[in-house]
């Protein structure tokens, strides 16, 4: 299939997805389930990654900025800005593209190959609207919480390094993460993450919805979903940075 065909099919699927739900009650029920499945179930992985990445970032920054010309608070400042600007939105989204994207693609793909989607269509249910819309909305609603959560635990990871090693003192680290704070960086990170959430959920749904064949094809759909949503995240990251920061 050519790129244009993919874009065409994706657009048609999104047109079908973004219609008024046939039953609002069922939509909200699905929405809560998806918030739990896609959002709440990602809290533990976000915590682990953020703490360790924050810790490593602090150590590497400290080790590479041992120049007497640089102020001691540089480590905290660089860690904070790296977390806020890139890690907690872009890198976290790339990680979630793997977890959430493969989850969505394999779930919808399995439903496709086992005729569950056909069964819905035959009943007169708009399957794209029923299955995909709650996933997209749920993930877009929940990702700002994941980003804030990741920022907190990333900074906490750095604090642990200052607490348990002699690389940097806790007071210097705390001073650094507070120094020259630009609140727009948080908004920038949140805006990016919401757009990335849409990319992850919609691209994964697209590949799952158009999976045909057997279990192997569901696996392929899942791989395509992760790879392509990751590439799109990286591309949109450049565009959004230019639009929002430059």
């Amino acid at each position, binding site marked *: 299939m050519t790129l244009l065909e993919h874009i065409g099919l994706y657009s048609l699927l999104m047109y079908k997805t973004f219609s008024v739900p046939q039953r609002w*009650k069922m939509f909200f029920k699905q929405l809560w389930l998806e918030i739990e499945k896609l959002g709440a179930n990602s809290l533990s992985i976000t915590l682990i990654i953020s703490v360790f990445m924050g810790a490593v970032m602090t150590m590497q920054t400290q080790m590479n900025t041992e120049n007497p010309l640089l102020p001691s608070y540089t480590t905290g400042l660089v860690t904070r800005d790296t977390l806020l600007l890139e890690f907690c939105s872009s890198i976290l989204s790339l990680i979630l593209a793997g977890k959430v994207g493969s989850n969505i693609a394999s779930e919808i793909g399995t*439903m496709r190959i086992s*005729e*569950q989607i056909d*069964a819905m269509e035959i*009943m*007169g249910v708009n399957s794209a609207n029923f299955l995909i819309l709650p996933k997209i909305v749920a993930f877009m609603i929940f990702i700002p919480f994941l980003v804030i959560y990741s920022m907190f635990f990333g900074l906490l990871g750095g604090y642990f390094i200052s607490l348990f090693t002699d690389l940097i003192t806790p007071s210097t680290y705390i001073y650094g993460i507070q120094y020259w704070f630009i609140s727009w960086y948080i908004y920038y990170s949140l805006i990016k993450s919401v757009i990335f959430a849409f990319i992850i959920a919609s691209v994964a749904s697209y590949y799952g919805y158009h999976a045909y064949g057997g279990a192997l094809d569901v696996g392929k759909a899942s791989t395509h979903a992760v790879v392509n949503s990751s590439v799109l995240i990286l591309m949109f990251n450049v565009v959004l940075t230019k639009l929002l920061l430059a």
Partner: protein
Amino acid sequence: MIQIENIQKTFGSNRVLKGITSTFETGKTNLIIGQSGSGKTVLLKCIIGLLNPDEGDILYDQRPLSEMDKNTRTQLRTEMGVLFQGSALFDSMSVIDNVLFPLRMFSPLNEKAQRDRALYCLDRVGLQGKETLFPSEISGGMQKRAAIARAIALNPKYLFCDEPNSGLDPLTSIKIDELITDITREFQMTTIINTHDMNSVRTMGENIVFIHQGEKDWEGHMDEIDRSPQSKLHEFIYAGYAQSKR
């Protein structure tokens, strides 16, 4: 009553259906039989609207499918019940939630009445006491029964079954056949069954359409098979018997 008129369908250069015309009457179990690859699944998918025929039309109680707009088709689909080859039960829902699904989406009944209706349908197919189990926790025969219960939940006018006995042992197959025959008469539905199970043909074929290489080769009642001069039909019907005699 469902009438199909000159249905033709081609995939690429492969002419799968070559102008099939037939009438499926209400209150009767209508069987579409034929070898694997003869086109019977494609014909069934055309009848239920999952595929659009290249030529010809399908009339649901004199209402042409080709002239129906989106809303009319959605309405028609609430009058259909479909039993898929692999049951197509929703994995993430319990047995009762599967049966409740079409009711929650389309029924004007209140919650209690919907639940009562679902319990009645489950009781009708002999699945009382299995409501809370998930599809993966019940046998293949039970899954078929649950799928039948879901198919009849909205009291459909038309019931379609694609290979209802596939993967089932002979005794369970007979029970499923009896169940389909009973509910067809009880609810006065127009039932079309796609099968190559010879026991089904012999026991429930009130109107049989034999398809050979995309063409209707023979049509009649199960009692007329022996009197038919069609050698291809006899070859198909008695193939298993002839093999066992050797």
